[in-house]
């Protein structure tokens, strides 16, 4: 693994375009800017094509003999299946409104990270073989031949886009570049050009129920650990149930919250809240993953992994599903789940058993976001909070792209934060809510060999944090996504040392006054409240 350049080096960004035309400029596969190739075993367990040992830094990518045919057929099929794709291929006028909205372009200065040009990588091939102008005029109409070099360029840039959709917000035509990246990745997938950090979690999820490959007895062990720590902090022994038939609510969190810090503190927060409410809920070892790395692979893989949620809810007889603080999980639920694996007629429209609130927005999916659930509790004074327990923290909030932009969930986490802590500060307006800047590591790019690009792509987000850190002394970046919780600590250590990262429900857990609790002196990280 290459060592990452120092911040002062990485901050020297050149926005001068290369001397040669973009079609004649090839990407340099320099360590730190690309992710490792999928392992053959993971491809095999998912039944995906062309499992082999290879590396993107190799000259020979060992493509199948008829790879060109496969790509053309794949593109033809998708142009037919997704009218949005055909539209996105045809209507771009190259106005450039998207160009400086991408965190990877801002952080690297590489023109092919301008969303318009990233899309052009695919569009040029589309023009050559699917439009009359391109067929006749070729390069003059912006068309080009599909070659192995084009495949390499696709791989390089489609796995440098985090599908965050910030660019699409500014496109006057509403072109969703994330969907172009999604299709680009699907096509690459057809010839076995995918990255291990996506296929191995997807394979794990398929085999064991979650990305990390946590088996049922290990999940129990991890939950037990959280239970012990909660006892130490509050004096209360809680008893979560797992795989319990007949529970009213099935709760599904990202597996990162079960396994990895600081997500585990958020897991403790969920469990404490549910205990205090006396909620009739269960966790599951089969549907033990909120996230869906299948989304970063193909529509089919997304559907396959997502189907576990409804299948498990039906098996257990749950009335509705409560979902944890996960980012892309909610994009899948909000934009695809209902038509893909629904309708889930065996469940009921979610109703909070505590406040009686009927979640109209969840009528079709039967899934409620934990921040909707908790903000509703707070609004109805259904829980007692001592926000002074978070007084040592000066908090800001990073809107996770998939939850804010893809789902429109903006106010609920802020409502909660404003009730569980007394020092909350917003980052500048054009870096939050719908216009939030990506963490730089989303869509399965949160792997360490990609660190240089992660730090470059995360720079716009980090800059905004630095602003509130300098101005208001912010020392905690809260968020509602497990990839965020996994990657933002490195981003902060790199660009804004002194800022920690947490989930929102960790802060809820700190502030929650529980019946029968001992005098609380420690926060969930076992640090003194002082």
């Amino acid at each position, binding site marked *: *693994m290459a060592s990452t350049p120092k911040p002062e080096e990485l901050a020297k960004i050149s926005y001068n375009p290369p001397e040669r035309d973009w079609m004649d400029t090839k990407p340099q596969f320099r360590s730190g800017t690309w992710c*490792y190739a999928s*392992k053959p075993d993971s491809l095999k367990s998912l039944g995906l094509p062309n499992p082999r040992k290879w*590396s993107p830094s190799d000259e020979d990518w060992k493509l199948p003999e008829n790879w060109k045919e496969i790509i053309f057929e794949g593109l033809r099929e998708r142009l037919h299946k997704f009218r949005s794709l055909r539209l996105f291929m045809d209507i771009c006028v190259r106005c450039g409104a998207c160009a400086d909205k991408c965190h990877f372009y801002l952080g690297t200065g590489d023109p092919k990270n301008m969303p318009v040009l990233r899309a052009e990588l695919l569009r040029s091939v589309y023009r050559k073989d699917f439009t009359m102008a391109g067929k006749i005029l070729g390069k003059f109409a912006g068309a080009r031949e599909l070659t192995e070099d084009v495949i390499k360029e696709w791989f390089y840039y489609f796995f440098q886009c985090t599908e965050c959709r910030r660019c699409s917000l500014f496109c006057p035509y509403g072109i969703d570049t994330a969907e172009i990246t999604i299709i680009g990745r699907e096509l690459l997938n057809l010839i076995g050009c995918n990255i*291990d*950090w996506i296929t*191995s*979690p997807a394979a*794990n999820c398929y085999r064991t129920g*979650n*990305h*990390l*490959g*946590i*088996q049922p*007895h*290990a999940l129990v*062990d*991890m939950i037990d*650990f959280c239970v012990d*720590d909660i006892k130490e902090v509050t004096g209360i022994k809680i008893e979560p149930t797992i795989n319990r038939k007949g529970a009213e609510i099935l709760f599904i969190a*990202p*597996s*990162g919250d079960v*396994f*990895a*810090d600081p*997500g*585990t503190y958020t897991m403790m927060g969920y469990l404490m809240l549910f205990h205090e409410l006396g909620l009739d809920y269960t966790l599951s070892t089969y549907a033990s993953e909120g*996230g869906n*790395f299948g989304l970063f692979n193909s529509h089919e893989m997304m559907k396959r992994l997502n189907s576990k949620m409804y299948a498990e809810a039906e098996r257990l007889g749950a009335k509705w599903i409560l979902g944890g603080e996960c980012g892309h999980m909610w994009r899948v639920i909000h934009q695809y789940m209902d038509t893909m694996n629904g309708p889930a007629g065996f469940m009921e429209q979610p109703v909070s058993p505590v406040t009686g609130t009927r979640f109209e927005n969840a009528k079709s999916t039967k899934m409620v976001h934990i921040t909707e659930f908790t903000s509703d509790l707070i609004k109805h004074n259904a829980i007692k909070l001592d926000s002074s327990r978070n007084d040592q923290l000066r908090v800001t909030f990073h809107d996770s792209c998939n939850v804010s932009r893809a789902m429109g969930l903006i106010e609920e986490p802020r409502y909660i934060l404003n009730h569980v802590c007394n020092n909350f500060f917003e980052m500048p307006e054009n870096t939050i809510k719908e216009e939030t800047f990506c963490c730089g590591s989303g869509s399965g790019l*949160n*792997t*360490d*060999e990609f660190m240089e690009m992660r730090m470059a792509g995360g720079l716009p987000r980090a800059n905004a944090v630095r602003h509130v850190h300098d101005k208001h002394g912010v020392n905690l970046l809260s968020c509602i996504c*497990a*990839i965020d*919780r*996994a990657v933002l600590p490195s981003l902060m250590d790199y660009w804004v040392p002194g800022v920690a990262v947490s989930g929102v429900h960790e802060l809820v857990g700190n502030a929650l006054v529980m019946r029968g609790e001992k005098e609380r002196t420690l926060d969930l990280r076992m640090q003194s409240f002082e």
Partner: protein
Amino acid sequence: MSFEIDGKVFEVDEDGFIVEPDLWNEAVAAYLAKTEEVEELTEDHWKVVNYLRNYYFEYGIAPMVRKLCKDTGYPLKDIYELFPSGPAKGACKIAGLPKPTGCV
């Protein structure tokens, strides 16, 4: 990629994690330790390595970092002193465990 000890070949991934945890032995640990800035494996190192291996064989995954600290009695900063690249990339690699993937 691979390395060889006493005529036996051990395959490793791009980051130097051994591909087959079952083939691990103490000599492999000593070899991997040198790649992770650990010159010599002391009793403290072995306590962590053995704990990780036992947990892995029982549960099929590395333990939560906090559990590792609690059960071995070493606070995280001590783990970093023992294994400069940390519990996952340092200690787990030396113990022959696979790299965790996902939202970590």
